[in-house]
C-alpha cells in the first residue's frame, strides 16, 4: 500500500477519487491510499503527490501555462 496526498478542487465526489486511485494503481502497479485535501485555488482538476513525484493535472497550472504561451 502506497500512501499519497491528493489535492483536489471542490466540488468532487467519491467516484472521481476512486477513478483517480485506479489510474495510479495501474501506473505504479500497487494500491494507493490517498489523503485528500480540498484546494479551491486549483480551480479544477487535481494535484497528486505520489512516490516522490508530483502529478499536476490542475486547471490553475494549465491556465498559467496558457498565459505564458500567449504573452511570449
Amino acid at each position: 500500500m502506497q500512501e499519497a496526498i491528493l489535492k483536489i478542487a471542490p466540488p468532487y465526489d467519491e467516484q472521481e477519487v476512486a477513478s483517480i486511485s485506479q489510474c495510479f494503481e495501474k501506473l505504479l502497479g500497487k494500491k494507493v491510499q490517498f489523503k485528500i485535501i480540498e484546494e479551491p485555488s486549483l480551480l479544477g482538476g487535481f494535484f497528486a503527490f505520489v512516490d516522490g513525484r508530483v502529478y499536476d493535472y490542475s486547471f490553475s497550472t494549465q491556465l498559467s501555462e496558457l498565459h505564458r504561451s500567449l504573452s511570449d
Partner: protein
Amino acid sequence: MLQFDPGPVGPFLRDKLNKYEFSPQVYEYGTVESCSDDIVQVAGLPHSRYGELLEFENDAYGLALDLRLDGVGTVLLSKGNEVSAGSLVKGTGRTADICVGPELLGRVIDPIGRPLDGRELHAAEYRPVENPAPSIMHRMPVSRPLETGILAVDSMIPIGRGQRELIIGDRQTGKTSIALSAMLNQRGKDVICIYCSIGQKASTVAGLVHTLSETGAMEQTVVVSSTAGDSSAMQYLAPYAGCSIAEKFMLEGKDVLIVYDDLSKHAVAYRAISLLLRRPSGREAYPGDVFYLHSRLLERAAKLDDALGGGSITALPIVETMAGDISAYIPTNVISITDGQIYLESELFHAGIRPAVNVGLSVSRVGRAAQHSAMKQVSGSLRLDVAQYRDMAVFAQFGADIDSTTAKLLQRGERLTELLKQPQDQILSLAEQVSILTAYAKDCFSGLTVKEVAPYRAELLLYLKRNYSDIFETINTTGDFGEGGKEVLEKAIAQFAADYGEKANAKHQ
C-alpha cells in the same frame, strides 16, 4: 498620438488558443526542511544532479551543491526571505546556465544573465556555467602577444594570448588599474574583453563601466557583476558565468581577455557556502576543494588549435594579499595554477612608482615566446637592469662610498624607473614603447635630471610621431621594425637628442 491596430492580434491569439492541448506536468518534488543564511535543506528530490537549478515557490531559484540520500543541500541565488519551510521544490533538470553571444557586448549582466543596465536583453543562445576545459590535443602553444599598453608589463612581463597571468598585490596598489588599462588598450582591436566583478563594491564597478563607456571600449566588453551585496552563490557563480561567455567567443575563433576581479573574494564566498553546508574545513577554514575551485576555472583559459578556429581566452585573475604576504593559502594556490604573476607592492606605489610592479617577483612563464620581434630586440636586458638597480639602490641608501660603475648604474636605474612610470590614462602603443626603449638603450636619458625625463619622453614621442609616422605604422601593424627601420629610428632618436641638447644649451645661455 500612438496608434494601435488590434487587427492582427485577434487571429493570432485565436490561433494560439486553438493549438492548446491539455498537458499534465509530472515532476519530482521535494519539500523545504529549513532555510537559513541562504542555505536551504530540502527533503526528497532523489534524482537531482550536482549543480542543478531547483525552483522554489515564489520564483526563487537555488543551486544543488550537496546531495544526500534523503535530500539536497541548496544555496539560494536570490535573497532568501521568500522561501518558507514546508514549501514545494521542483527540479528543473538543467544545470545553471548563462546567455552567451554577441548580444552581450556592451552590456552589464549578473551571473545568471539578468541585465543590470536597465535595457532588455534578448540572447539567442545559452551555455552551461560549468564546462570542461579544452583537452590537451585541442591546445596550441601561446605565441601571439596581448598588449596591455603598459610599458613595464609589455617589455618585461609579456602576456600572450591564451596565457593566465595573475595580478597580485595588497589593497590599493593598482591591481584593477592594470587590468583596466589592458582592457582599454583593446579598443579598436580584435580582442573581446570580459570583466567579472566578484564581491566588489557596486560603486567601483559603476566607475569602471563609466570609464569603459567614456573611452568607447565598452562596445567590445561584457561586464558580469556580482557585488558585495549579492548572495554568496552569485559571487561563486560569477567567474564561471563570465568564462562561459568567453568560451562562446573563443569557439567562434575570437581572442578574448577575461579579468576575474578578484579570486580571493571568490574563495571567501565559496568558504561561506561550504561552511554553511557543514563541509569539513581545512587550512584558513577553506574547504578541501578550494584549489580545484580555481584550477578548473583557470584551466578553461586556452589557445585553441586551428581546427577549432584558433581562438583564445587570456585570463587575468586578480588576488588581493594581506600585508604583502604572497605565501598565504589562496595566493600560493593561484600562483601555482597561473603561468606567471605581476606582483604589485604598496611601498613602490607610495613611492610614486606607478604601476607599482615589483620586477623581481613578477614573471611571465610564457615569456619571450609571446613578444613582437621589435619588442624582443629592445627589451633584452631590461629586467636585469631594473633588478640590479633595485638591489644596488638599497645598499646606496647607507651612504657608503660608491665606485664610478655603481654610480653610473644607479644613475641609469633612476632614469629607467622614471621611464617606466606611466599614468593610468596614458596607454602606449607598441611603437611608442619600442621608441622609448630604443632611446634608453642609446643612453639618451643619462644627460638629464630625473625630473626632465618625463617631458623629454613626451617630446620625443611627439617628434617621432610627427616625422616618422610610417615607421610607427609599420611597427604597430606588423610588430617588426621592417627593413632598415631600426637604423632609421635610432638615427631619428639621435637627431632628436642632438636638437634637444642644443635647445637646452641655448636656454642656459
